[in-house]
């Protein structure tokens, strides 16, 4: 009885792993569109955390056409997990250029998580890495 129960659990565990792997594979293969993101930080050295960081960027598609009508979510987070993320508002400023401004909460390594929603309904995620200067 105990052995049968153990076998069922082991098979269940294996099946769960297989199911999860397939699920992640499908999820990861969804974002296939080529999107170019060219960007500049307004501050070349982020020294003072009291000053806002402005992050301006331009979006182009695979044919180098400017993407002017995307809806964008921007979340800044640290490389260390468990830090409270910083949500930033992204504004369109024409010609495929977008602007955002936010305050960092701590010095160190940061990641900007961009969720870009195109008018066609397609959603693309991009990450931008940067670090503050000491």
């Amino acid at each position, binding site marked *: 009885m105990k052995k049968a129960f153990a076998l069922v659990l082991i098979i269940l565990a294996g099946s769960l792993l297989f199911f999860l*792997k397939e699920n992640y594979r499908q999820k990861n293969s969804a974002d296939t569109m080529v999107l170019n993101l060219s960007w500049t930080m307004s501050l070349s050295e982020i020294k003072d955390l009291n000053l806002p960081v402005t992050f301006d960027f331009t979006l182009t598609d695979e044919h180098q056409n400017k993407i002017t009508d995307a809806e964008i979510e921007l979340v800044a987070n640290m490389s260390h*997990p468990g830090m409270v993320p910083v949500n930033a508002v992204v504004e369109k400023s024409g010609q495929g250029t977008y602007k955002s401004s936010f305050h960092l909460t701590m010095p160190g390594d940061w990641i900007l998580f961009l969720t870009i929603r195109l008018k066609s309904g397609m959603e693309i995620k991009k990450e931008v*890495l940067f670090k503050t200067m000491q």
Partner: protein
Amino acid sequence: MLLKPRPLFFFKRVLQVSLFFLSLYLVAEGLWGNPFAPANLTTQFVWVHYRGVLIFSLLLLGNLFCFACPFIFFRDLLRLFVAPKFLFPQKLRNKWTAIFIFSLMLFSYEAFSLWSSPFKTAWLIVGFFSAALIVDGLFKQASFCKYICPVGHFNFLTSALSPSEVKIKTEQTCADCKTYDCLKGNADHRGCELNLFLPKKAGNFDCTFCMDCVVACPSDNILLARVLPGENLERESVSPGIGKIESRKDFQWAILTFFFLGFLNAFLMTAPAQKLLDVWLQINHSNLLWIVLNFVFFGMALPFLLFFLPANWLKQRPNDSIIVLLPMGIGLWSAHYSFHFLTGVLAFTPLLGLNLPTKWMGLNPSQAVPVELGLLFLGVLFSFLLLLKKEKQKAMKIYSLILFAALSLLCAWILLQPMQMRSTFVGVMP
């Protein structure tokens, strides 16, 4: 008594099964999910929530995580099919291997930035499952728990301040016992796999709260009881299966490693440590060598210079002073882990699609400082009181009081430093 034996054992199985499946999910999320640590539940749960809940449960309840260990649950499943044949090698029946693996785990954490990689974190979980299976698949009893597991040893040491302990109810019942089921087991239940003989057991060292003894005892004479935290550190105790802790060099080094590597682990997160690293990188470009040197200095040289060398000069023994350093170490670890836990307790919610206001996700780092200092202060206070009571050698007592005061101030200084999350992507700049 906190719970009756049977419901307690059932509760343990429910927790083990839950944590087993949660571990599987975290392995999958780490291997195949988002590769960025803050956007991945594996790194969030393992490096923030697990460590935070672990330390608070140890201090408020007891060794709940060994009690609910998923690695041992999986090992138990496989032991139904394959029984181990060998006894753990005599020469390795001590804490040296566990100290080495504990140090190696902390070293890997620093050297390979485990906190910033869901992939590596997932493999760490797989590594724990594999190690438990291999060691306990080969060797009888709970060899992995008693001699190898770094997390288990962290729990054993921290549970010195836990408010609960597995104990006997009445001495007379044990005196009349002829079968010793709590140790040897019986046809239905196994006995203590860590060789702790309950009538003589003192404190929580080496006790995984597995409750095997509780259900094996035919007289229902063992219970999970409330105790005064740290009461067993106060007196010299000889525990069966362990011996006299004060005289065991491996236990002394386990406590020194626990304290000094805890100190290093917290220090490396601060801005001054980053500045030191920058200075080092101008002299030598090897980040790895810097971490090796830090570990050699904090893990070996400093304990020797601060405890064994002065004791030698004073012609006294450092044993008791080392044992009573443990609460300060627990204070420091709990301060460090509580910082991560409190500042990011709900930081995982956006990953689940929940949009909570930012201020609900965790405390501002500056708001966590009083909690950190409070936890450290409690540990320091415990250490000082124990030192005054336990250390009988006058010269060593005076020296240790000065040393403990200096160490406490250094720990507080670390907690007051601005945090700076360590360089994970050196070279990637705007």
